[in-house]
């Protein structure tokens, strides 16, 4: 049980850190837009840093989407 004498203060410090991190995330606007990040991974193939993934992703037959404007 003596471990608790150490673990409790550690837990409190960890919570303090977590709250600080959470405040930072809220203030930097990370929760402002919940929609676009979900879609942005679709475009990662376009990023030059992800070229390795592109080769893999180039499976046969990219499905055709809707027609252009109008």
């Amino acid at each position, binding site marked *: *049980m003596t471990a608790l004498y150490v673990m409790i203060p550690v837990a*409190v410090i960890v*919570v303090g850190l977590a*709250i600080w991190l*959470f*405040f930072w995330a*809220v203030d930097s606007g990370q929760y402002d837009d919940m929609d676009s990040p979900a879609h942005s991974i679709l475009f990662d193939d376009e990023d030059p840093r992800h070229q390795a993934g592109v080769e893999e992703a180039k499976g046969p037959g990219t499905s055709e989407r*809707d027609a252009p404007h*109008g």
Partner: protein
Amino acid sequence: MLGEARAMCCPGCQAVAEAIVDGGLESYYQHRSEPSTNPEALPQALPDEIALLDRADVQQPFVEHQGELAQASLLVEGISCAACGWLIERHLRELDGVAEASLNLSNHRLQVRWADSRLPLSRLLAELRRIGYAAHPYTPDEAAERLHQENRRTLRQLGVAGLLWMQVMMAAMATWPEFNLDLSAELDTILRWVSLFLTTPIVFYCCGPFFRGALRDLRTCHLTMDVSVSLAIGGAYLAGIWSTVTGVGELYFDAVGMFALFLLAGRYLERRARERTAAATAQLVNLLPASCLRLDRDGQSERILLAELRVGEQVLVQPGALLPADGVIVSGQSSVDESLLSGEYLPLPRGVGDAVTAGTLNVEGPLTVEVRALGDDTRLSAIVRLLERAQADKPRLAELADRVAQWFLLVVLLAAVVVGIAWWQIDPQRAFWIVLAMLVATCPCALSLATPTALTAATGSLHRLGLLLTRGHVLEGLNRIDTLIVDKTGTLTEGRLTLSSVQPLRDLDADACLALAAALENRSEHPIARAFGKAPDAAEHVLSVPGQGLEGSVGGHRLRIGQPAFVAGLSACTAPAIPGDHGQWLLLGDEQGPLAWLVLDDRLRDDAAALVEACRSRGWTISLLSGDSSPMVAEVAAQLGIDDARGGLTPDDKLAVLRGLHERGRTVLMLGDGVNDVPVLAGADISVAMGSATDLAKTSADAVLLSNRLGSLVQAFDMARRTRRIIVENLFWASLYNGLVLPFAACGWVTPVWAALGMSVSSLLVVLNALRLSRVQAA
């Protein structure tokens, strides 16, 4: 694109597609989930008006400078899906001088940081337009800013409550007899102090809104949910301090954290839904142009900001532009579209000496207008003031949950007093702890989650159907409506002229005549021209005569279209009389004489009849109130079977009708779109603006029909009914749980474990029940 040729509908789309493909951003087309907005439907910005934005004094309110970089928020129009966001960000980042561009998809705001010494703002906007989006500088208004700040604060409170609650739960649960294995007395004390230490921020930081709400309600002598919640939280916390210090008694700290987390989560959900809708409607209230062309004494025009214009000066208003101020025409001949202000659906002819109103659209020829009234003195502002007055006496619909909470709290408080007195007689030692257990166990956690979760789920599904709720009372209130007021132009009808018939006068058949007319009209910028659609042939030498019509040649034949007298002038015969009485009649003729009548009219929306039918089957009274004074009003009413139809009403008249209905105790739903509907929209119990409505109408309405499908509204009526049923069910479940637990608590059998368990199960039940509303039939 994407390795194949595609047909383009117009040069506008083609230019955009070329710009996108040339920029190496072709995969936009692969990822987009919605067809994009037609660039020609975007508001046209004049190049010299954009250039005005490069002036330092104009930029001052919305551009911030940090060293070499400037930072600005832009509101982007024309975004239809996530791929647009990617396209905009990528395209801008590739420009020389742009350091950062990030688009928020939920409110369509673009944050951009760029070096404005190398890249003027006007270039930036022009680049956006090149790929098919229109952007305006965005200056947050105070209300939006405040809402945003409050949301962040609520989120912080929610996060703190969640993180701390988990720790408190671990510490507090260890002291409960059920989990207490071999805790030494010393450790027990430490754990109590640790949980007190961790609970304190929850109470003082996270629960602030409940205490403030409770104080406010007590001052006005109302018993609300906040009072009840504050009692439970405050009681549990104070008792916790007592038991920590003395080392005896139960510890309810984890219940405090749980209340805070559940209640804040409910509030945050509601807020998010509200902020999203606020962002969607808080576009620019853009009724007046940002700039205008001022004429100096020599007749030279100069583009200036509207704020720099003074009464008595003369402005040049080009065809297709909005009038910047009230005034009198000093030269020029044109027709003016006043449909948004008055509900008249045809552009009205205006000439020298006629008065014109700010915010109306000049349709045909250039006009020189002497400014008579500006800003607050214009007729437009008078309507806005009427709106504010109407908003002030908007009746409030009491919410179901509030009434239930009031009764609930009364019962609990009475029971607490009775039980307290009874236990005082039996065992004074335990009386306090039993009353406390009762207050905690009956905390209306599930009760206060019942409504927000149901409303949030229903709001989400309605959004998918194309109806955006901007105020909270709509769903509950829809069940109490008994009268519907509709506007005609733009609401029951499409609000734009469409070709309704072609009546040939000579040997050429209707299709051939239409082809000729379309060939001519395709060369015109006039709004009427769009009604004719695409022409197979192109006309040459097209000449526009303002107020009269068009002249040009197709396949070597000279043709005219427009006013009968003008067209008859080409063949030098007398003009035939117009055979009908409503709609706009255009004559098509060549050098031999008239060829055909083309009738343009405003068409009823396809689902207007279904809406009227749905309302009638619910037993509502329907009134058609229109600003249009033409016989069209009576005809639309006859077509739809509406008995009470009135035309030629001013915004004041409409508001008077609404007041009359209110005096007779009616609950009114208003459906409208124009600026002339705005006061009624603001004053009605519930108001819905069409998605195509003016910004002012949208911001003053309680809901916006984004899809413009009246059918979605009928679905919303059903959804409102289902929501009400779910809310009632939820309230019933929550009260049942609280009612069941009350006798057990009164007998002193409820320990913190059972309180925690019962609370979470009942809350979960309520939330799951509410989630049933997020299932929605395919629209």
